[in-house]
């Protein structure tokens, strides 16, 4: 299947500004949401978004077409987010989620009863960078695990493992919060 964004990138490589604007309009919202989900600072997220498209402008000629354009651009964003978090000492390791767990709770039922965006946002914020990245791309962008692996530049099995653990941590975190809310 042909990549609908590929022609934009070819044109950008030839310094076509209209093609850059078109690609921006296609990817700006999902990219910004992805970046913001990790930085939680709208100004920083806007700066990173800008830097990503500047890099697309400068590097489009080096795109080899081995992945989808969306994957390539998200990969640039992911590496910029990680660089910024390392520079500012905010890099999390996977699995650092605090154990705010009530193991007696029925996790799924609690989530279904609650379904509250605020709880989900809090629990996502508690995930480590790599766990959270995998979950946000799977659920925000509906990416397959193979594509997430390309964005993160890791094997597919690594993404499956991250998703497996991230999902467990999320469900346990949500269970703990919803249970406490009901009890309170």
């Amino acid at each position, binding site marked *: 299947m042909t990549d609908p964004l590929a022609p934009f990138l070819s044109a950008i490589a030839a*310094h076509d*500004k209209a093609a*850059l*604007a078109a690609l*921006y*309009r296609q990817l*700006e*919202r999902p990219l*910004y*949401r992805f970046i*913001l989900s990790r930085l939680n600072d*709208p*100004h*920083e997220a*806007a*700066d990173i*978004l*800008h*830097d990503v*498209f*500047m890099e697309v*402008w*400068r590097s489009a000629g080096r795109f080899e077409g081995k992945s989808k354009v969306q994957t390539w651009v998200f990969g640039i964003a992911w590496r910029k987010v990680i660089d*910024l978090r390392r*520079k*500012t*000492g905010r890099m999390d390791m996977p699995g650092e989620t605090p154990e705010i767990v009530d193991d007696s709770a029925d*996790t*799924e*039922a609690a*989530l*279904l009863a609650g*379904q509250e*965006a605020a709880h*989900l946002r809090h629990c996502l914020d508690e995930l480590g960078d790599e766990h959270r990245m995998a*979950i*946000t791309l*799977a*659920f*925000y962008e*509906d*990416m*397959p*695990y193979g594509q997430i692996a390309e964005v993160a530049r890791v094997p597919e099995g690594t993404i*499956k*493992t991250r*998703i*497996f653990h991230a*999902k467990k941590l*999320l*469900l346990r975190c949500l269970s703990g919060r919803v249970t406490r809310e009901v009890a309170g």
Partner: protein
Amino acid sequence: MTDREEIEALLPFYANGSLSAPERAAVEAALAEDPSLELELAALRAMRDTLQAEAPRSPGEFGLARLMRDVEREAQPAPARSHFWQIAAAVALAAFLGQSLFLLGQRDAGYELAGEARDTISVAFAPAASESELRSLLQSLGFEIVGGPSALGLYEIAAPGRAVSDEDVEALRASHLVEAADLAE
């Protein structure tokens, strides 16, 4: 991963509809046998729906205007003025540092340079450094800008509540965002 864990790892991708046909069939077979997986799938779908309903306000057309402005700037040849100021700043900084070393040489023999504490550090940042990069650097080191930029682009940096030292200067020099740094006279 066990077979069960493999199925659990695939569940989010079953929920987002991105699995291949054989993987989808494997998950559906497991779902038919295990009601707890059905509950988990329902929770994951609720999670996905909640996240997709979020719509943060993105930079939109303002961000595009900024992008086009910077792309235009990059396409232009660098103005001679910026080279002039870079050279002027480098010469001035070299003179400033030379004067500092000369003055230090005039001091008493017992004067200790190491560990010397001052109020501020004079810093020249790399021309390509962005505001957010500088903000991150200064915040991570606990500094703030208290003066500048001077006509030559030098900033005065201080650490609130304490004097600055050679160690602080070294920390700034270690960053690629800093072209030159020295304790201010």
